């Protein structure tokens, strides 16, 4: 069974700074990490390979330095990795990203299952997985917390929904996005690290993918960021003065005014 896992490199920090000129993240001096949800996707891919055989291909669209993350993916059990990198891909929103990824899947051709994390921790949209399924016109299940069984081209998964779990059967090839409850990702192995050092990671550019140039990068994006800003901190607290009794009276009065009490 051929499994493709989509990975994205994201800033490994919660201390995000924004460049006011370009409205983009300042990435200088910030260590990049694999998007945490994607690590669960990779682990599930590797576990399914161990259960059912086959291979795991890690794929990422990003700048050249994403290669480092793909090497780590190999050291954690992926068999091979492909980097989609081209200046023409830059500035892509989820639509352009999922289109580009879908063209890479079409080029790979032989795949049974694509696994993505439920969302990234930088963009937080959770859109790339489902959009990818639309582009490829294959079945899709989001928020998968357990792969129960794969039997031929039928897969049964458990997915998290708002008020519980849902068991879904879907045919393969298909796409799932996974939640963190699905597994505990393994750490790199020494053999994997040795393999990752030697691994050749092909870089596919726009011309390798037979893409419609109007659908990739900034040009192909249906959305763009108009403004990015930190919400202004509003201090709404009010200190009550006086002795405890008068404070209680004032408080009650205010609660009544606000129709809370």
């Amino acid at each position, binding site marked *: 069974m051929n499994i493709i896992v989509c990975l994205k490199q994201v800033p490994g920090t919660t201390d995000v700074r924004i460049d006011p000129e370009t409205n983009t993240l300042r990435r200088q001096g910030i260590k990049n990490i694999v998007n945490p949800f994607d690590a669960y996707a990779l682990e599930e891919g590797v576990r399914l390979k161990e259960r059912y055989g086959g291979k795991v291909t890690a794929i990422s669209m990003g700048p050249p330095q994403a290669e480092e993350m793909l090497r780590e993916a190999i050291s954690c059990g992926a068999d091979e990795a492909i980097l989609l990198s081209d200046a023409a891909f830059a500035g892509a929103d989820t639509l352009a990203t999922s289109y580009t990824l879908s063209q890479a899947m079409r080029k790979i051709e032989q795949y049974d299952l694509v696994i993505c994390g439920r969302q990234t921790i930088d963009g937080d949209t959770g859109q790339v997985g489902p959009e990818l399924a639309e582009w490829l016109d294959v079945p899709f299940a989001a928020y998968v917390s357990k792969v129960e069984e794969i039997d031929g081209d039928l897969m049964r998964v458990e997915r998290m929904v708002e008020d519980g779990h849902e068991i879904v059967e879907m045919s393969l090839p298909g796409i799932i996005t996974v939640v963190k409850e699905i597994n505990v990702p*393994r750490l790199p*192995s*020494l053999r994997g690290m040795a393999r990752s050092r030697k691994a050749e990671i092909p870089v596919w550019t726009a011309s390798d993918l037979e893409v419609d140039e109007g659908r990739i990068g900034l040009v192909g994006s249906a959305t763009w960021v108009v403004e990015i800003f930190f919400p202004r901190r509003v201090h709404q607290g009010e200190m009550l003065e006086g002795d405890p009794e008068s404070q209680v009276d004032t408080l009650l009065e205010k609660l009544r005014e606000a129709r809370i009490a």
Partner: protein
Amino acid sequence: MDYGLSEEQKTLKSLARRIAEERILPVRAELDETEEFPRSIMKDLADSDIFRIFIPEEYDGLGGGGLDLCLVIEELSRVCSGVTVCYAATTLGAYAILEFGSEEQKQKYLPDIAAGKKLAAFGLTESTAGSDVAAIKTTAEKVPEGYVLNGTKQFITNGGEAEIYTIIALTNKSKGPRGASAFVVEKDTPGFTFGKKEKKMGIRTSPTRELVFRNCLVPEENLIGREGMGFVMTMRILDRSRPGIGAQAVGIAQGALEAAVDYTAQRIQFGKPIISLPVVQQKIAEMATQVEAARLLVYATARTIDGGARSYTEEASMAKVFASDVAMKVTTEAVQVCGGAGYMRDYPLEKMMRDAKITQIYEGSNEVLRNTIAVGVRKRKARRE
């Protein structure tokens, strides 16, 4: 300090540190409290190929040396030496097969040990035979189908959890030490059961149990090497594994030093962090120097062994004795500089102090090993070396 480590060794060290910090640190206090075996951490170590490092490549290992093993043991012990012992005891159990086993024995046992599928253990100590190893009473009587083992081993690390046991037993009672032999005994062999599980001062997540043999028949092919080789092998195996105890002690001491520095840097008394007090600085400086000296002696010994030295009893003993004394001293001082907090179980230092104590005791007490060192020194004097 530049330790002259290769790129591979640096990678190995940083992976071991990552496992220790991400997987062991969150559960170490709980493991100490519950005394449960750290099964999931053994799985993490196996998944990361850490059990492969000391096994030759032809048996699915990575063919690493003693220094590689010391680096891993040190990094794991920096966080929890109890967990480390569960791992390291496997090397002790595997060494007899690795060094003296037949090709068939190596093929049969080493790949599973390398994969971390099976843990190993070494069974020598008995209630009447500690430092005086020649006083063991467990017997292995030759019968047409193999050997029948009878006797009880005491204080056996990984007892009950390991699948593969190297057992020292007497095949000829009249010959004394020359009548001992080594056997591989697999868990679930009829007649082989587990007795009392000890309650210990430290390294509490590591199981220490009795192994009970009652007419336990093992096939002839489980004899390691030849009959009568048991003690020679034992001495050789312990010499080889002793730097590992040194590395464990260095790791404990390093962890205690770091915890003491962290605490004293944020503990404010008389308006300033206590690390700025000269008396604390003196202690920290002494601790740091001792840890560094112990580390260098352990690394140098491991390199001597990896370099193919024929005899290294003295060096191995020195590394173990010095590093374990350092671990005890440093953890005691670390508790002291942290005061009340150092003594409380909410902080890691009292556990480190309890864990350090065993390194002065097991795999040859420091007193016995000092005798060994003295014998070596006198012999060299006699040989005018």
